[in-house]
């Protein structure tokens, strides 16, 4: 179980980080989602939240592979603002990613409920933080279509920073869960 948690940590890291060498992401999202899916495959036995997260990880894995063929020129993680047909799959992928994180956090919260360490409380808090930031980002994102880029650049920068902080907070939460597993549960 501990190794499953660390696979999720590494998976979240790969999804979050984009390291490009001549426009090629050498840390592809698909590899990240594969690691998350493999980690959650083991954890899904623990509760239904992990099971939901596991399903989302597979969906996102398929999406990240398809994205390489559908939008070879698009930056991974960005939304090419061409048409509604282009936007909808990205919006759906963001929604599935939110459900994935919801599954992980609620899974940890449910599994560690009542444990002295207070990990369930931390999971709850970080989930709220993640959801708030994600919803704020999703609210602001479509304004890119209509507002002047000079106005939007600082807003997008601040939002991206907040999203990154929230994602790192989730990543550290899973790491804490893995450590606690090592110390108390095995």
């Amino acid at each position, binding site marked *: 179980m501990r190794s499953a948690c660390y696979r999720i940590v590494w998976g979240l890291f790969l999804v979050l980080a984009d390291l490009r060498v001549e426009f090629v992401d050498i840390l592809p999202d698909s590899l990240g989602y594969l690691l998350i899916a493999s980690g959650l495959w083991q954890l899904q036995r623990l509760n239904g939240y992990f099971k939901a997260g596991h399903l989302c990880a597979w969906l996102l894995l398929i999406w990240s592979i398809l994205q390489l063929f559908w939008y070879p020129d698009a930056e991974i993680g960005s939304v090419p603002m061409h048409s*509604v047909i282009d936007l909808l799959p990205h*919006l759906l992928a963001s929604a599935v990613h939110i459900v994935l994180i919801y599954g992980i956090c609620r899974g940890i919260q449910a599994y560690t409920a009542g444990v002295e360490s207070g990990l369930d409380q931390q999971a709850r808090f970080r989930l709220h933080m993640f959801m708030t930031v994600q*919803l704020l980002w999703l609210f*602001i994102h*479509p304004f890119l*279509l*209509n507002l002047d880029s000079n106005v939007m650049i600082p807003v997008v920068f601040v939002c991206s920073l907040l999203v990154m902080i929230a994602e790192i907070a989730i990543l550290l939460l899973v790491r804490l869960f893995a450590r606690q597993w090592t110390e108390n549960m095995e």
Partner: protein
Amino acid sequence: MSKKWVYIIAILLVTCSWIGNVWYYEANQLGRTAFLEHHVETREGDGQVFDLYYVEDKRAAKTLSSIHIEGYPNLIVTSHPQYAEYQRQYLGKMTVNLNKPSVQKEAISEPSAEPVLVQMITANYTDGTSEQVDIGEIYIWPAMYHEGAQDAISWTSSGSSSDNTGYTSAVVNRPVELTAFSSKLMGLVEAGDLQINADISGQVPGRSYQTPPSKAQIELSGKPIAEISLPLKINQGGSIRISHQFNMHGLEKSMGVYQFMLRTTFEEDGRHWYEDTIIPYQVWPMEKEMTEFVRKGRNGS
């Protein structure tokens, strides 16, 4: 209020944000290539060029690739598809050189020859399709050579400003008689959209091409050309300064493309000849004007 309701409201807000923005974005798509309305006067030969402006959506799958003007098979077009960028559209520009050779010295035409009027051009698109499009009016005067013109007038300097004012000045090398100011687009002057003043034998224009003209040099001065009593004799050493100012207010005028060619006719020893002064209007719409143009273009399509 429970957290569940906070999330429900937040999700509703996100949904409204997406629906509203996508709707607004779609409502401001032109959906085609639209040429601005041109009122251009030019002439063949001498490397004369004029610009054709058009608007296209940024996301357009089919864009303008080239144009063809009937009767000008050798025209040279320089394309600037992203001449100016707007939130959802590009303003494109095609600089057209008709590429007709200048008339040889032997071929002398009368100044009264009429120009060719071009109102439709063939637009060729990237998907291989083409169509006839209305571009307004382009008057193309034939190239002419007039023996009398040789060295009588020397154009010395010109300048223009971003507020669509400008001037051209010349010195007179031998006595001539100015007999007329004319243009096919004189309606612009009569409507007050363009003010053209002439200062004849007033200040002696500078001969320097090195330094850019000052604001004061560019400003409108002299008398409106309609108020100058013609014919007017100009002695050797006299000067002519033609200054202009466009007053384009309202969407239709500010989104129009204008190139006025003021034809100044001279008489010397019973021979008529003329000099042409090109007065262009720099089209540079604001974001708001472009949005309005697109909305009107959608309704008109």
